[in-house]
């Protein structure tokens, strides 16, 4: 039986916004819960996975994520191995992703397949593709930045 509090897991918490690995910082004095969550998620992914670390180190882009059903967003400013997370959407974005909370969570659950491409043919992938076709997932800047989007997806995905 699992015994609570034995500390078996590497803990990376949302409320601990300290920049443990020195990769992520926050552009606002009071990062929103959403900013803290995305920053913590990306940092944990990158620290745990060398392939994601390579993508992270190669990323130079400003990506906005707007969650339509909570009216909140963040800007992820990737700068070759550093990430600054801002509350809200900042100007001059390379990509802007707009979707509801469930779809944003699905994006972070996309599997990564051959050649590092996100998998759109399993259940989660089909759901994301359907939202894109229905216009419920909008990605501004998609056509000219597909490689960047794939790289961001790899860094963002927990799969």
């Amino acid at each position, binding site marked *: *039986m*699992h015994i*609570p*509090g034995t500390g*078996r*897991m*590497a*803990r*990376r*918490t*949302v*409320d601990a916004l300290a920049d443990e690995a020195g990769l992520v910082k926050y552009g606002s004095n009071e990062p*929103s*819960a*959403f900013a*803290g*969550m995305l920053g*913590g*998620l990306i940092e*944990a*992914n990158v620290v*745990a996975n060398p392939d994601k670390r390579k993508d992270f180190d190669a990323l130079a882009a400003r990506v906005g994520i707007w*969650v339509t*059903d*909570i009216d*909140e967003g963040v800007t992820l400013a990737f700068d070759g191995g550093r990430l600054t997370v801002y509350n809200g959407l900042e100007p001059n974005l390379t990509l802007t992703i707009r979707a509801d*909370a*469930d779809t*944003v*969570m699905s994006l*972070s*659950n996309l599997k990564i397949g051959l050649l590092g491409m996100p998998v759109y043919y399993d259940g989660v992938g089909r759901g994301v593709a359907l939202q894109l076709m229905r216009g419920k997932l909008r990605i501004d800047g998609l056509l000219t930045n597909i490689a960047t989007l794939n790289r961001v997806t790899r860094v963002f995905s*927990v*799969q």
Partner: protein
Amino acid sequence: MPVEFASDDWAKQFKDEVNKSNVYKSAAKGWKWTVGLVVEAEPDKNFPEARGVVMDLFDGEARDIKVGSAADAQKCDFVITAPYSRWKQVATKELDATKGMLQGKLKLKGDLPTIVRYTKASQEMTECTSRVPVEWPDER
């Protein structure tokens, strides 16, 4: 018959609902961590003392769900904390738990990639909560 929120009877019915759910069973395959829910006190809502719900969840099954102190719940691998009235909003489907976490209305502590990987399981767990008929202290 309705049961008092965050009581032993409530915990038993909640556990039964979780174990009846095939959706949870499938979505939580591989889960092996404890989850604590901290219900913060709101004396003006007739909920005078904080309580903790300790859930021993393993591979799609709720092995045990107990109500204890907030300190008990805080020892779990994952801890979700909110005041009583927020939990009521979640259980009555007025507030979606995922949105609540993104907005900081429910505070989450624990390994983020793991919890994100099991989003569907946590959503179904919320559904299970809403299936337990509850007597709310602030409505007495």
